[in-house]
């Protein structure tokens, strides 16, 4: 998934080969992760696609089914992965993920702790940010979920950057071996305030913490706990408004056609009073916000170790 893997990084010379993870794109809201396997087929509403037809094509290709339907085959990125991964828990989305990484000041080489792992949506982006020399240690108290996350990171080729541990961080805190070593810590826990004393132990001086909570009561309580060891405590909400773009045709109406500088089709009609009226159609590209949007994901509380 990352350019670190020089063999797999996208390039004009790179084509899809057996065993590659591809994102099958039908529409912007309909995508699927598929591991290419010679002899396998993908069946969807557009027909049957043979994987063997894909091999040797470049990423970004349009491929056809037996019925002439088509899909695009894309190289995976953390953003695409977030849209296709299997939701074992509520996941973090792109606006929150981007903001968290920027605000935690995560750069290559950082050591980052995370809990819980959940579906690994954020973890994937954390790994991208710390690569090639940093590492993400992520913990979930759910054994099976941790296992599935591990499988996913194997599949996306990130397992050398991520270690998944099974641990109840609220109950036990982070492992002592990370004391004073973490550049940043991310918490997505029901009672984050229980883990905050451990976070203070793990962080380097001036290290950063982010806690994600859907409810304001959780934020309230976390912020009270943060007062003792942390400074620069700030809570944000970040959302995305998306736009739809359309070319619309609109009629115009001129009393006098002579000054018309529109080069589009004109119709000249004679009005009852004898004067000419020009009615034209002009088309223009317009944008408006989409009617529905995600209204809330969670509050992001950031703090720095004093």
């Amino acid at each position, binding site marked *: 998934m990352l350019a670190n893997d020089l063999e797999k990084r996208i390039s004009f010379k790179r084509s899809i080969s057996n065993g590659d993870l591809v994102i099958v794109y039908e529409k912007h809201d309909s995508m699927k992760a598929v591991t290419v396997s010679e002899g396998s087929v993908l069946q969807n509403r557009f027909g049957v696609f043979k994987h063997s037809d894909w091999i040797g094509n470049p990423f970004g290709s349009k491929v056809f089914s037996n019925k002439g339907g088509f899909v695009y085959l894309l190289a995976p990125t953390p953003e695409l992965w977030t849209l296709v991964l299997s939701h074992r828990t509520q996941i973090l989305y792109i*606006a929150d993920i981007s903001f968290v990484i920027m605000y935690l000041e995560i750069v290559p080489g950082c050591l980052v702790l995370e809990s819980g792992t959940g579906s690994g949506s954020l973890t994937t982006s954390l790994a991208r940010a710390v690569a090639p020399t940093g590492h993400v240690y992520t913990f979930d108290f759910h054994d099976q979920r941790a296992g599935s996350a591990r499988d996913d990171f194997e599949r996306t080729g990130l397992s050398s950057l991520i270690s998944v541990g099974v641990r109840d961080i609220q109950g036990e805190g982070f492992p002592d071996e990370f004391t004073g070593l973490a550049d940043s810590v991310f918490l997505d826990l029901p009672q984050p305030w229980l883990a905050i004393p451990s976070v203070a132990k793990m962080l380097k001086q001036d290290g950063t913490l982010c806690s994600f909570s859907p409810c304001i009561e959780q934020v309230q309580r976390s912020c009270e706990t943060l007062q003792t060891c942390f400074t620069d405590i700030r809570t944000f909400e970040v959302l995305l408004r998306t736009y739809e773009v359309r070319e619309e045709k609109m009629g115009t109406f001129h009393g006098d056609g002579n000054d018309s500088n529109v080069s589009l089709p004109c119709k000249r009609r004679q009005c009852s009073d004898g004067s000419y009226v020009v009615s034209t159609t002009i088309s223009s590209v317009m944008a408006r916000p989409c009617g529905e949007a995600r209204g809330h994901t969670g509050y992001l509380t950031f703090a720095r170790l004093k």
Partner: protein
Amino acid sequence: MSSSTTSENNATSSNNMMNGRKTWEGCSVLLDINDGDRLVFARLSNDAKLKIGNKNYSLQPLIGCAFGSVFQAESGPQGPFLFHSLTSSLQGNNTEEIKDGQVNVESRDNRALMDNNTAQSLTGDDIEAMRRQGARGNEIIEALIADSATFERKTSFSQEKYRLKKQKKYAPKVLMRRPVARSICEAYFKKYPTKIGFLRVDTLSLLLSMANVSSNSDVLVVDMVGGLITGAVAERLGGTGFVCNSYLGKSPYSMDIVRIFNFSDEICKRILRSPISNLLSQKESPEQILQDANVCNVESQSNDQMENTDNTNIPAKRVCKAAKAGEKAPQEIIDSWKENGFSSLIIAAPEMDTWTLVKDLLPLLSNSAPFAIYHQYLQPLATCMHNLQLEKMAIGLQISEPWLREYQVLPSRTHPCMQMSAFGGYILTGTKICSSS
């Protein structure tokens, strides 16, 4: 991690600097005066000064201190100086009371307070006299409170406000921050939003994510926002891959902001510049290469303005001179970009026609490469998106506008902040597809 505190160590530890937790001589810092009232970029040296009010403070005491340190402006017999304070909070004793206050209904209110300017009997001369006798900022604040006829009758909330107001005036504090993409973008957005095209920090973060910026990638940028994009990308590359800062015409766009980051030489080497024409051309004539090289050299000698603003003097000599970022891209690297394609594209060029730029640059990307285009106006992006759809050049196209709201979180007084930024720009994102099919 070891951080160098002496200039002798600088050369050897240059790779540690960027992630360094302590400052060094020649280090670039962001100074936050009185909780964001003023933000100043400065470069630390023995001669560097910071002006607060009408006094000049030497920045020498900041050298070798940890980022995140708080300094208090004090007056001493040798003149004003910055004092490294270990406790960052001056409100201290008052916060406990407020915490308790969450259940207690406040019994005090402001019905008896009169605005007649008689509550304080200490005059400016009195305070000056105290100062001459060596009173610290905190002592002056305590004296003001003791002398205030109304302080005791204020609610605990307004007592805290009073204290804070006096602290800002009589004991200004300076918080030393690491200049990284986040803090630099925030500071510019607050101070000089036009210089970065009103690009807010959450929008910048989205650009970097959507363009899949990661180590070892080759990112093509058109950065007309002062070098902010170039710097932010270079930070994420961490001394691997390349960021190609491309420009139309003969002269490169300003990259001043890149110099504010404490980039190691390794990272600076990964920032290259190239005219767009060179990236597009099949083969290049030697004369043109020479010509372009000259232009680059002239430009890179110029500007250093940001540090200069807000009355911070630039030191005459720099022990650790910021390495030169933005060398002209060598032909062999340009050739390799042409051969392999860039891994992604970021455009923040408010002064260019978006569609024509994208139409030219998109073919330079590898197939399936993501791109992210910033604009402070919606229409150019809408037109560009529409044309990309018509020409079947990209899929997964989306225009989005991030929305960021900060909250005040206090016991029983939690609510969104009264002031917010209503606009941080628009982004068009998508993925390039193969053109042949």
